[in-house]
């Protein structure tokens, strides 16, 4: 049940609940000799009940005043949709425009375009659980998978602050995949990677990522925000000497994703419109029934205490009028 109170010292008022044991709360009727009165089990029983009522009423009032509540609970819900982790690149180059320049009034930065479109996307996906992770040199846990769209919007809006460092995509992916670890497999699971660059992934991380992708059954969508004149993910190297992960990280990352064995879709966006297309595709494809557990912070029980106390008071008051005087 996990019951708790707001103000603990008020609980000392529970001592008052002992008062009905000392006094039956009824008028005394004079009787010449108590022994003359026959013992009556029914009366004893009723008096006992009345005392219990009074004790419960006092206890109810005290608990209500102390602010009795049930602490955090969880319950299961069912919806249609997906578990989506937005994995956002916070590397410094995201603050440049698609043309690779510092944004002026006419064109927006890649980060701003991503922010605007993702904000719309989140608005459309009402039933999804959405989480946010970011990465630059190191991964940042931002927002757990949640139904609360305001929270996701606040996280997306916060990417308006200046970007951070370099692109360390493997750690970012690891962080994004960790979101699914304690979640039951239900609905579709998506990592939506929005980045403007790639980095070579070392062998160890490659093995781990392969394993995790398979284990967590995650689909990957990669929206690559391509800067003009930079290598793309579908480019073939012109010179065989450039055919390595250091020179063409985008191509190699793409090939790594293709070989993951889990569903993967890449989008190369050279303008905000292409990014829109990617988001529209996810919108169309990803709607499976799913279960999820929701946590409820706390439940106030003081109202219940008060109503119980009032009911008992009414009983006591009613019975007061049944007292007889001879």
């Amino acid at each position, binding site marked *: 049940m996990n019951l708790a109170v707001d103000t603990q010292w008020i609980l000392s*008022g529970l001592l*008052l609940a002992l*008062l*009905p044991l*000392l*006094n039956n*709360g*009824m*008028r*005394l009727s004079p009787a010449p000799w108590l022994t003359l009165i026959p013992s009556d089990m029914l009366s004893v029983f009723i008096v006992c009940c009345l005392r219990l009522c*009074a004790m419960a*009423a*006092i206890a109810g*009032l*005290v608990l*209500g*005043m102390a602010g009795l509540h049930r602490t955090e609970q969880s319950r299961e819900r069912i919806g249609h949709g997906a578990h989506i982790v937005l994995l956002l690149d*916070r590397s410094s180059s995201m603050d440049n425009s698609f043309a690779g320049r510092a944004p002026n009034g006419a064109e927006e930065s890649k980060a701003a375009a991503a922010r605007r479109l993702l904000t719309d996307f989140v608005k459309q996906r009402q039933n999804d659980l959405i989480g*946010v992770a*970011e990465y*630059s*040199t*190191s*991964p*940042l*846990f*931002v*927002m*757990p998978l*949640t139904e*609360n769209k*305001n*929270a996701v919007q*606040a*996280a997306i*809006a*916060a990417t308006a*602050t*200046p970007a*951070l*460092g370099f692109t360390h995509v493997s750690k970012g992916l690891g962080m994004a995949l960790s979101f699914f670890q304690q979640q039951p497999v239900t609905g579709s699971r998506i990592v939506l990677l929005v980045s403007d660059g790639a980095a070579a992934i070392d062998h160890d991380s490659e093995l781990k990522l392969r394993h995790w992708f398979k284990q967590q059954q995650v689909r990957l969508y990669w929206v690559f925000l391509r800067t003009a004149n930079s290598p793309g993910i579908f480019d073939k190297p012109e010179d065989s000497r450039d055919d390595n992960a250091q020179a063409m990280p985008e191509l190699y990352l793409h090939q790594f994703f293709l070989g993951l064995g889990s569903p993967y879709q890449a989008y190369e966006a050279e303008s905000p419109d292409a990014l829109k297309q990617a988001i529209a595709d996810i919108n169309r494809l990803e709607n499976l029934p799913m279960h999820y557990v929701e*946590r409820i*912070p706390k439940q106030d029980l*003081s*109202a219940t205490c*008060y*109503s119980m*106390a*009032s009911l008992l*008071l*009414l009983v*006591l*008051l009613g019975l*007061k*009028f049944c*007292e007889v*005087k001879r």
Partner: protein
Amino acid sequence: MSHTLKDYRTWCLLIAFIAMLMLFMYPSKQQKMPIYNYTFIIDITRSMNATDYQQDNQAVSRLQFVKKTLRELLRNLPCESKVGLGLFTERRSTLLFEPLEVCSAYTEIDTAIDKIDWRMAWAADSNIAKGLLSTLNMLKKSDSSVIFITDGQEAPPVNPSYQADFSTVNGQAKGMIIGVGGLQAVPIPKFDSVGKPIGFYTQDDVPHSSSFGQSNLDPSQIKGYNARNAPFGSVAVIGNEHLTALHETYLEKLSSESGLAYSRLTDLESLSLALKNPKLATLKVVQTDMRWLPAFLALLMLSLVYLPRIYK
């Protein structure tokens, strides 16, 4: 009937019952209540891993203690208050999310605080004055109060002639610096690439004085001075920068320069008290629970009925 009405107990019960009716009719009243809008910026540099707090008789790191205290604080904040979260390392901070209403987004904020880890740091320096200045500039337009939580350990040490200039933000910024850590210097734990502790930083691991920019000392007083090759002298400086303690005077100086308040983190009570600073609060008309008043009256009346008989 008349004898029932003559009994004071009947009247007590009646008053108690009427009080309960009032309780359900007017459960709350409109009242001006302070609500808060905080953006917590948490220092996640290495020195925050130093274990100089106690929790359940176990030494815990400063960062862990900060997280635990903030999560408890979150539970006690009045609804409609907002909390945002950011991290500080290097010489700037980043915002994880903009302030969110605490009651509706309780779980999200709570989890995000819980997941904060020193390994989220994108760079390893810890230049607190510059970080504070850039944070205040970054959040200048926001109406949230910046709560900058740090131990004040500058690493590497700052050259006094290149100090952050707070004159542009002083007076505009609203917020507080929270000092974390003990006053006794303790070693800073070191971790390997998979996060296992591998001892502590030693004297040889860290620079003990600033060798950045121009030296402000008189060259004749610097041992081994060479204008080009050794402007700070050639003698190895030995200090205690590998140990960490709360630099309280330094943080107090920063707070007075930037126009923020200062408070030290010792426990939840003192933190919530410090954060309830009226400067950081905005008054908002909210429904306040008034049910205790009629309930108290009812309790009093009911107790009167069952008060032990002293005289017969």
